[in-house]
């Protein structure tokens, strides 16, 4: 008589892709408007900081400042590409547009909705991060082969920030709270995660564990090593962090979306 267990259904990739396709159909409509600001933002940082500030910096981390900035900004582009999708847009679909409610009148289940949204956020992260990576490669800031190593890290960074964003979006009661998410969470990550300077060189070692907790630090470190074509043991930790935190948050988000959509 208690059918609780049966109410969990495994994710179906085909239905998740139907959810993905819904967002894609919307995006196709307005991508020209969307892509420009998202694309130019990291480019503006690269030019202003890399060329402007970089003129006063002889080298950082063994390279020109411009070359130091490039990998971090690719990770940031992926982070931003994923974040908007799973925060404001997902919140509106859940609470205002009743999109998920209407999906659940078809064979689509809450787990598929979540998977589709995350896949879509990864797609957008890949569009923005990937486009920026191509520009950087064309600029000559990364060797073509190393750019190939770096490319799969773009969706990986997207996955991490899709998981963080959706877990937050599903739990908050009020859309205004996203301004906290962007200003007090993503902006500090942007500023302190090895993008603009090597964080640990400026920190007392007692703070290292705190630094390692910053989510953006890990995609940036992976990206920087890929840009240089270097391997290091710490990358295993970075990979484990990204995959582990994503898995935990998606597990949480699955539980929340089930509860939210199956009231």
């Amino acid at each position, binding site marked *: 008589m208690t*059918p609780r267990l049966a109410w969990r259904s495994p994710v179906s990739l*085909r*239905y998740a892709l139907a959810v993905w396709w819904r967002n894609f*159909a919307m995006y196709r*409509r307005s991508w020209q408007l969307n892509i420009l600001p998202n694309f130019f933002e990291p480019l503006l940082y690269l030019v202003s900081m890399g060329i402007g500030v970089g003129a006063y910096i002889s080298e950082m981390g063994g390279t020109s400042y411009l070359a130091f900035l490039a990998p971090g900004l690719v990770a940031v582009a992926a982070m931003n590409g994923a974040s908007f999708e799973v925060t404001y847009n997902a919140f509106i679909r859940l609470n205002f547009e*009743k999109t998920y409610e*209407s999906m659940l*009148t078809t*064979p689509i289940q809450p787990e598929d909705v979540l998977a589709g949204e995350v896949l879509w956020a990864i797609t957008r992260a890949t569009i923005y991060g990937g486009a920026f990576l191509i520009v950087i490669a064309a600029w000559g800031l990364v060797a073509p082969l190393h750019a190939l190593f770096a490319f799969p890290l773009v969706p990986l960074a997207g996955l991490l920030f899709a998981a963080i964003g959706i877990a937050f979006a599903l739990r908050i009661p009020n859309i205004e709270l996203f301004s906290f998410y962007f200003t007090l969470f993503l902006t500090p990550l942007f500023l302190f995660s090895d993008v603009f300077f090597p964080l640990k060189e400026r920190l007392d070692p007692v703070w290292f564990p705190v630094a390692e907790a910053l989510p953006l630090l890990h995609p940036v470190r992976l990206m920087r090593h890929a840009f240089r074509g270097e391997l290091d043991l710490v990358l295993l930790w970075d990979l484990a962090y990204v995959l582990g935190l994503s898995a935990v948050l998606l597990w949480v988000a699955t539980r929340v979306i089930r509860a939210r959509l199956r009231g």
Partner: protein
Amino acid sequence: MIVRCEQVSKCFGEKLAVDALDLAVEKGQCYGLLGPNGAGKTTALKMIYGVTPPSAGRVLVFDQDITTHTREIRARLGVTLQENALIEALSPVENLRVFGRYHLLSPAEIERRIEQLLDFLELRSHAKLPVKALSGGFQRRLAIALSLMNGPELLILDEPTTGLDPAVRLALWNRVRELRRAGTTVLLTTHYMEEAERLCDGLVVMDQGRVVARGAPRALIHEVLAPETLELELPAGRHAAVLARLDGVRSLRSGAHLLLYAADATALLDTVRTSEPAAQLVAVRPTNLEDVFLALTGTKLEGGA
């Protein structure tokens, strides 16, 4: 049997939204859930299409348990939600395509269904405009078209005509009748009594989560009240005297308004007039479900026709 609910209940915390609902909808029927806002109609529907798990009881759709066969069952039914959930930036055709994908239909099948539905719901003239430019009536028709994308055997309509003007409402009723002729089973909620009387072969009247009456609309009217209604206006102080002389006539009093229910309301009027010449005739009319609802629950239906 298309839908069978066996002692289905739903609690939200302390609140019992649906209390031991029994329901049986047969193939080809149009079945109605009637009641005021908050009666538990929408919750009952949500348990039937498997989005809300029942707290107790069992829901079978197409003879399968909804909790274990959710995807299979939903592939064969369509739901029009109370609130339209349309993609406003896209056109009706694009909305229909997205919905076709939700059902994993092939692109060719999607285009074929869209062609049929644009005609069936008369959407063709506005097929390419963004949804946000469409009137409420058009948007409602599109919402219904979405729920028909998969050619459902069971169509669930949650207050399909609330907020629509009478012409659009009539047009939608005709679409529902046509679907039924084609063999679709329909389950709808409404608080328009007229809608239920015109469309439904069977219905349950719900109030505060409980079923207070069930049956075919006319049978229910005959059973609870009587086929005809005599509406009179008479000083409230005289009501008791009138009723005392009329043995076994069901009545309802509201201020100076006195409603009497009888098989022959005209004959009843003559009887009343002999002793109460001052009684003002308001109307002699067929008894409707609104009267039944009033008699059963003592409350009016909000927004009723």
